[in-house]
């Protein structure tokens, strides 16, 4: 029974790492926006989700106007919420409009909460090759200009310019067609490139939905947007950004959240979460940039790993004696290779653990050997909450309860028993370059967030994160499933 409970616990932990926690049920979510320490996203219909920590989501966000697939953005000290008045034509006409409205706060319990009257900024006629729904907005960081992308599978994706001060359409602005047959379009900017992101495939078909997110890029926010093989998005092109997982089906409606330099998140919905009755749920994944293209990273998979410093290639380990493996030393002569091959056993925990001190053991980095003192089981701790896109984890030596911990003097050590204390809980973010940042939930006596850093080749410690330095970057290698 204990084993069954243990397996169930691990399965639950694994499942919780794949989808957001709480009741993250939403369709066509807006970009995630932070307001006074809480996270908000709005969906089709009238409401949306709120999260205190970015990991556990529940309904509660308020948006009037109905319609479909809104977007939201913070501009200055106000929030611009934008939506399409209809859900798009599926067998009828395609008259619709895009509306914008402001709010001083997104917290419906705040006395400052109250939307301005919505104004129309774009529209589609009843029968033209355009359907004004699914808006996505981007404030150009280089010019301060506010761009709106909208449209759907019926005809073109069109770009308009809005006034970031008023939320109105810029006077005289004429829409520019930049794509065809997509849903959930929006724009992003990075390193001199403008990206048009959209969703291809079939919406609203549960576990059979073929939704997938694609991108093209341009040097101008008004295109032309070209994909990785030279196809224009007006020609139906698009480089893949996010596709279905095994049990999470149909990602759609891209949203970008920049946490800080090098740490970005991609939000979207899964058309169906097969572990939640096939409901449409919020998805948040690391947003990576590979060769100038956005790519959704995977959810961190609980398991046992070696944790490799990108500074030195060394592995995070316990500062204990190197216990030599008892397998015989072999020569390299022909006769030495004439005997039959056998598979050598790996060194076991039981062969070394009694040589380790019983109390606190320092952490350090050493040569990758795949040895027991370098094998870390990374396991989510559901009751510990989370952060945008993930739960907190405990990091323990495989087969033990010995846990990595932050110390009051901002160093790292291992303690013999994981207690659930905040200094033993770790946040893991995959960075835009694909490597990882590892941060304790709390460093006793320190209010500033600190990250695991390799100060010298063998010396892990904690310091303020700097994306430009490989000292702060780690990789999780040689995965094996949790036992």
């Amino acid at each position: 029974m204990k084993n069954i409970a243990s397996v169930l616990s691990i399965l639950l932990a694994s499942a919780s790492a794949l989808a957001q926690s709480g009741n993250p049920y939403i369709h066509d979510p807006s970009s995630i926006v932070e307001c006074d320490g809480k996270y908000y996203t709005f969906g089709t219909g009238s409401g949306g989700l709120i999260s205190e920590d970015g990991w556990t989501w529940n309904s509660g966000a308020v948006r009037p106007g109905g319609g479909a697939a809104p977007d939201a953005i913070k501009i200055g000290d106000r929030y611009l919420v934008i939506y399409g008045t209809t859900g798009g034509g599926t067998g009828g006409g395609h008259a619709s409009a895009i509306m914008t409205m402001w709010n001083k706060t997104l917290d419906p319990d705040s006395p400052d909460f109250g939307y301005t009257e919505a104004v129309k900024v774009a529209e589609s006629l009843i029968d033209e090759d355009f359907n004004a729904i699914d808006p996505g907005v981007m404030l150009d960081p280089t010019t301060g200009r506010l761009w709106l992308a909208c449209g759907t599978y019926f005809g073109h994706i069109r770009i308009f310019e809005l006034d970031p001060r008023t939320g109105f359409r810029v006077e005289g602005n004429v829409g520019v067609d930049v794509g065809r047959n997509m849903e959930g379009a929006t724009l992003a900017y990075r390193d001199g490139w403008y990206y048009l992101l959209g969703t291809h495939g079939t919406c609203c078909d549960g576990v059979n939905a073929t939704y997938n997110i694609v991108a093209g890029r341009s040097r101008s926010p008004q295109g032309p947007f070209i994909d990785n093989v030279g196809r224009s998005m007006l020609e139906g092109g698009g480089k893949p950004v996010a596709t279905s997982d095994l049990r999470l089906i149909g990602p759609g409606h891209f949203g970008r959240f920049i946490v800080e330099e090098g740490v970005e998140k991609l939000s979207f919905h899964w058309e169906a979460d097969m572990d939640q009755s096939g409901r449409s749920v919020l998805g948040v994944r690391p947003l990576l940039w590979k060769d100038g293209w956005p790519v959704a990273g995977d959810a961190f998979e609980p398991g046992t790993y070696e944790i490799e410093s990108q500074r030195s290639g060394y592995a995070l380990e316990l500062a204990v004696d190197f216990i030599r493996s008892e397998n015989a030393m072999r020569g390299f002569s022909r006769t030495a290779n004439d005997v039959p091959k056998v598979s050598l056993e790996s060194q076991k925990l039981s062969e070394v653990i009694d040589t380790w001190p019983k109390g606190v053991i320092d952490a350090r980095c050493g040569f990758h050997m795949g040895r027991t003192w370098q094998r870390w089981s990374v396991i989510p701790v559901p009751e510990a909450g989370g952060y945008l896109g993930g739960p907190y984890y405990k990091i323990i030596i495989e087969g033990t309860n010995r846990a990595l911990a932050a110390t009051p003097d901002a160093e790292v050590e291992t303690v013999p028993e994981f207690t659930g204390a905040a200094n033993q809980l770790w946040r893991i973010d995959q960075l835009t370059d694909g490597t990882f940042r590892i941060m304790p939930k709390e460093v006793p006596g320190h209010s500033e967030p600190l990250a695991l850093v390799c100060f010298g080749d063998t010396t892990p410690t904690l310091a303020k994160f700097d994306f430009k330095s490989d000292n702060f970057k780690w990789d999780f290698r040689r995965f094996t499933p949790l036992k």
Partner: protein
Amino acid sequence: MRNIIRTLFVAMALAAAVSPSASGQKRMKDADVAKGLEGYFTLATGPQAYPDANGFIRRWLMLDPISKKNMTNRVFTDSYTREAIMHQYFPGQFTAIPKNGDVEKVTMEYQPPVDLTSNRPSAQANDESKMVKANLYWHALDSDHFFLKLFRFATGLDKTRYGVIFWYVTVINCDEDIENVRLSVGSNCGSMWWLNGEEVAFIATDRHMAVDGTTSKKLTLKKGKNILRGCTINGIGMSECCARFLDETGKPVTNYTITLD
């Protein structure tokens, strides 16, 4: 007798419901065709055309859409798409090279007019299937774009816009054999394509049109005439398709002419 009267009454009611302009009982004047398709197609003129700079074939004989009531695109599995397209709708469907103005007498599913003031299909659209006879006409056209905007071909001629099957055919004329080319097509939604009577490309499932969405295996465009025929089926949404030939390196093939006979 009573049954005969009732049958006649139903037939007359259906005939009235499917107006001549909606069903294509009468051939439209060329000027009306040109006006209806403005911005998307022009009447084909001149003895021959050429692929455009990117190799897209723009000159086609296109048949008025066949009504095939599909109010969802979820049905377009491989087997359904193939079966729906391969159904014999008119004689010479897979072999003939029609002329501009030729008529096909087709028995097809009746669909009520679409209510454009609604975003959804009318309730009647899901009524039990009724069959009607219609005269469908071939039109010799040049596309104004690299693709065939089949949806606007239908609406411009005041035909059924959703739940449709489009047939089109063209002739590729080569001065010599062109070996190791591939037919490259895209369609919204499913489509099948034949070169000289042989099936060479097939697309199924609900999808958008993408340039080079599917390519055939390597083919030879033979010296002389090559008949290229295609068919696109769609439920709701923006029907369209495109086609070109690519050489072994993926570059467009352009050294041929296009005629309609």
